[in-house]
């Protein structure tokens, strides 16, 4: 199952849900991979604390001009939509940071004066997530929200966790991590996202954490998913951006559902919109201080808060149920 989490508006809780769904899926013993495609500021690692094992640079091909072969015909300039290669008077000039790496200039050059050289723009990091040892798992248990005393981890929490100790050469991995990271000063996220998505699992559960917004990086992240979860909040901003996200992403023909985070604040617009559009609401997650506290410590909510975990479990069950009702080949149509 390939599950993408997007939102439109930033800060609604994409990463929170992506991390928690991945965590719950792994805790059920499913082969699970969390893939952070928010390459400008990937932050799922803060919660998942992966042990990074591998780092692969991502590069795009950019033109390099052999001036001895160049006849200043201007074909390269005419094909480039981004002025990344241009000709002023009879001088060909390349602007590497404007190049999208399409290779068009090299193709049209009649004298083969253009060769392509790699330009590194980011990195893909791979890692393993250890579920063992729920450090400080007791914190959420206290109804008072007082979470200072972590000295005595609660036994019944740890015993439900499959202990995966992935020391050298041991058992097969069932929860791992991939993130794309864009280098500072770069502006093209899509090539890095495309690379990160090569790590989507053929079997098992892949959770793709998309960037905010509704432009190319989001489309690239969500493309190919079996199901899309849009996380929103019931505020005018959340509603506005949810509409934009739905209108954009429904073009991809992927069944989608809505998660309302920080439920209890704002207004009813999001609910009204979902019911008008026939969009299933997969969950309403309350706006509560205890949740914010666990989050602010960088801890995984469904590890610390049993009731939160139950909500994530039922969300995941709903998604699986909806997918099983889909005719294979998946046309959009859940709830409409």
């Amino acid at each position: 199952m390939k599950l993408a989490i997007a939102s439109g508006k930033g800060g609604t809780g994409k990463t929170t849900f992506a991390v928690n769904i991945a965590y719950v899926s792994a805790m059920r013993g499913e082969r699970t991979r969390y893939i952070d495609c928010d390459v400008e500021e990937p932050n799922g690692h803060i919660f998942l604390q992966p042990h990074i094992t591998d780092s692969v640079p991502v590069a795009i091909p950019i033109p390099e001009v052999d001036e001895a072969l160049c006849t200043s015909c201007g074909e390269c300039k005419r094909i480039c939509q981004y002025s990344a290669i241009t000709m002023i008077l009879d001088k060909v000039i390349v602007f590497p940071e404007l190049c999208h790496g399409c290779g068009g200039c090299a193709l049209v050059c009649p004298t083969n004066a253009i060769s392509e050289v790699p330009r590194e723009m980011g990195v893909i990091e791979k890692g393993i997530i250890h579920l063992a040892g729920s450090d400080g798992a007791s914190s959420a248990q206290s109804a008072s929200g007082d979470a200072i005393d972590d000295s005595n981890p609660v036994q019944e929490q740890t015993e439900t966790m499959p202990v995966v100790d992935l020391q050298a050469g041991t058992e097969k991995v069932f929860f791992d991590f991939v993130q794309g990271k864009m280098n500072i000063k770069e502006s093209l996220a899509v090539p890095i996202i495309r690379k990160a998505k090569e790590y989507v699992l053929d079997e098992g559960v892949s959770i793709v954490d998309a960037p905010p917004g509704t432009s190319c990086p989001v489309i690239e992240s969500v493309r190919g998913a079996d199901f899309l979860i849009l996380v929103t909040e019931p505020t005018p901003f959340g509603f506005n951006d949810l509409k934009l996200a739905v209108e954009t992403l429904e073009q991809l023909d992927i069944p989608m559902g809505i998660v309302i985070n920080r439920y209890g604040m704002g207004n009813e617009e999001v609910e009204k919109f979902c019911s008008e559009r026939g969009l299933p609401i997969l969950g309403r997650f309350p706006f509560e201080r205890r949740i914010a506290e666990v989050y602010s410590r960088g801890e995984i909510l469904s590890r610390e808060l049993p009731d939160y975990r139950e909500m994530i479990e039922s969300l995941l069950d709903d998604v699986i149920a909806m997918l099983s009702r889909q005719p294979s080949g998946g046309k959009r149509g859940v709830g409409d």
Partner: protein
Amino acid sequence: MKVAVTSLGEGLDSKVDTRFGRAKYYVLYDTETKETETIDNSVNMNASHGAGIQAAEAVANTGASVLITGNVGPNAFRSLDAVGIKVFTGADGDTVREAIAKYERGELGSADGANVEGHW
């Protein structure tokens, strides 16, 4: 020798436009013949990207060898420099006529690189 000056209006008495790529006009002044000509830059002014590069090309095509403006970004500077156009920045608040006079008296500094970031 032709001097190009970014300007907010047409002719020598309009104010210098401190932007290069998205300047409204370029006023061309020939230091030998004293002739002036105004070029409309509205196409580049509304360009979504690459305005500096395309403006550099437009200026190069006029045959100018000197550019006087307020600020110039990295891509524009590289483009101008590649074809040997000298860039003089800091002509803020002047009319085109005053800026040219300052240039001729050697009062404007020649830029050896961009003085602002792209998309300034």
